[in-house]
């Protein structure tokens, strides 16, 4: 089975190529034959064929819940999958400290916060606090990193002010609540505020994290990098070293694009700087 996977694959139920997928959803219609037909229509639009509505249950008079199994006709082309591979080497704390010392010649300053009304600090604390995450110590533990953790429900202006005051090299923001895209709005507000407050090219590195950001959406949100589920402190520290040292090198060449794949100069709307 293993060895080389083909380029084109399909979901696997119990036979190669069967395409089998399980789906569940609610439709805002009373449970009757029309509802089941509507469920089949949706399944067909999702590309399931054949699709079997194996469970349908009225939830009160106005809604019906469905479970559907079916064969997805789509092919997954692995060649089209763009993986954001780690664009930097993973360093040990000692290596991080050494790199910061030799390249920055001063402590690296990180200011972190949960912004907006979000009060979920466990994630950012896992990255910043000494205690750390998954057996790795957090950034506070690194001798050459100075961490200012502002905690929860920090307002954006407050964060900007503090970042300036601390001469932050990097700003780390956590967003866990995603209902109504709160995390996206807050992140964009934050990045806009930083671009407003700092001269072009001098904005600190903007890093956001949280379990439910879409991979690859950093440019759209105006930040330098996104970290998702299961991030460990060492990854973040290594990234900071990589990004800041490449940047300081690049800064020598005026007009050169900012480092970090995600920080390509133009966002989807064609202009990153507002």
């Amino acid at each position, binding site marked *: 089975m293993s060895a080389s996977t083909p380029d084109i694959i399909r979901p696997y139920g119990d036979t190669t190529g069967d395409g089998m997928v399980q789906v569940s959803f*609610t439709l805002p219609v009373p449970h009757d034959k029309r509802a089941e037909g509507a469920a089949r229509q949706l399944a067909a639009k999702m590309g399931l064929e054949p699709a079997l509505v194996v469970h349908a249950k009225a939830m009160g008079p106005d809604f019906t819940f469905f479970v559907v199994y079916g064969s997805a006709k789509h092919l997954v082309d692995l060649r089209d999958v763009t993986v954001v591979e780690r664009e930097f080497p993973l360093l040990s704390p000692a290596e991080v400290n050494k790199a910061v010392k030799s390249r920055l010649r001063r402590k690296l300053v990180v200011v972190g916060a949960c912004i907006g009304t979000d009060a979920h600090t466990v994630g950012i604390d896992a990255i910043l606090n000494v205690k750390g995450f998954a057996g790795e110590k957090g950034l506070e533990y690194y001798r050459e990193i100075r961490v200012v953790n502002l905690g929860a429900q920090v307002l954006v202006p407050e964060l900007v002010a503090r970042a300036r005051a601390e001469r932050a090299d990097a700003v780390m923001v956590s967003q866990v609540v995603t*209902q109504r895209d709160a995390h996206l709005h807050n992140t964009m507000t934050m990045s806009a505020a930083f671009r407003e407050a700092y001269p072009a090219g001098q904005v600190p590195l903007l890093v956001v994290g949280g379990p439910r950001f879409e991979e690859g959406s950093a440019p759209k949100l105006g930040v330098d990098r996104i970290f998702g589920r299961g991030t460990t402190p060492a990854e973040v520290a290594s990234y900071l070293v990589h990004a800041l040292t490449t940047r300081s090198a690049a800064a020598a060449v005026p007009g050169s694009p900012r480092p970090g794949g995600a920080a390509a100069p133009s966002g989807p709307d064609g202009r990153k700087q507002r």
Partner: protein
Amino acid sequence: MSVERATLRLAGLSGADHDRVPWVNHLVDAVRAEVGLEHGVTPPVYDALRRGEAPDLLTLAQRAASGSVHLRLPEGREAAAARSAARREVGRGLRIIDKQRARRDRLVKRHGDPVQRPWIYLIVATGDIYEDIPQAQAAAREGADVIAVIRSTGQSLLDYVPEGATREGYAGTYATQENFRLMRAALDETSKELGRYIRLTNYASGLCMPEIATLAGLERLDMMLNDSMYGILFRDINPVRTFVDQRFSRQIHARAGIIINTGEDNYLTTADAVDSAHTVTVSQLLNEYFAKEAGLQDWQLGLGHAFEVNPDLPDSFRIELAHALLARQLFPEAPLKWMPPTKHMTGDVFRGYLLDGFFNLVGAMTGQGILLVGMMTEAVVTPFLSDRDLALQNVRYVLNAVGGLTEDFHPPRDGFIQTRARQVLGEAVDLLTRITQEPGAAPLLEAIADGTFGLMRRPANAGKGLDGVVERAADYDNPAATMLEEGSDR
């Protein structure tokens, strides 16, 4: 500060200006600016009304907002007259609360209480009261006995209570008087339809705890989340403000016949559920103490605890059983609130559904009072309509098919479960002993400042809302506080 605003709300002041700033805020701010709050807000206010600064409270607040009233601290007979006017008006508010309580009693008698214990408690959290309502009604039809409307993120740090029906909360719906009223009315309808009184819950917490408690009493909410230290530890609200607000809120709850729900579950979302099991016990004991002090009865103490032991731990389920049994035996008369796994829930919704099943089983086997129903999507989204429906199906199966296991469940005295329970109790006693041995005038405040709870240091002279804390003057008067203490209504 919010205690004063709550008092004005009892006196009938409601509504907000076109910027949605409530009139109670305007009026309290004006009093604070012109006379200070250390004497209470009502003496200057009723003095001004007596002096004809405005025909009624609302107009007075409006004029105060535009700076066009003169406020002063009345003295002597004038003070006495203002006091008695205030008492009369505030008494009206208390009588509404009393009436709502009586009305609840009548409705419970008419529609009936849930047939089973634990009561089934479900959350709605769309952010939009008009989506919340049908979802709550659907949940009740599927078996929920208690509906909790989760608050929008951030409301706890607002120093005012928003006004009107709201549709724009994030991960929860604003607690407003109008939202309370709309939801209670909808559930009254559903109670009738189902022949079972459906209870409504919200949160008396944050900077406006006393006002929200008051609104809950006025609008006949049936339960309120209300923890003695949650705001301090998890919202960094000033400890003194929290204890002051909490006392007033709990007096209101006592008066309104509202069951409080405490927040011990929160400790376990940040700390480890095995290592910190005893902090839950300690917090329950403190919550019980403060509740009794405020006049709450045993049946009103929905002390909290939660199923948060790492499910990969050997015997994790039996550890949960031990913890749940301990709480049950320490507070035999209280309707304990048993809360589902959250921290160890993942995107694997199938596994989540299973864990919730065993959580329900602990609830049934240990005779919990209120079962907060777990959602398989806990780690993903605020609950979908279908999540609730599936979750209730889970509860029904477990209560109905497995619940009777209690008959066969006899943990031996020196077995795993009883040993674990004794260990947790021992650790709790040790911690309490350490707290009482703190040096200083207020050992609990010192302990909080020292980071005894949840590893968070919260000094008494810091935290949000500190500037709303005012030391009482000798002549401080608050007719609400007085009447609540006396149990009188006029």
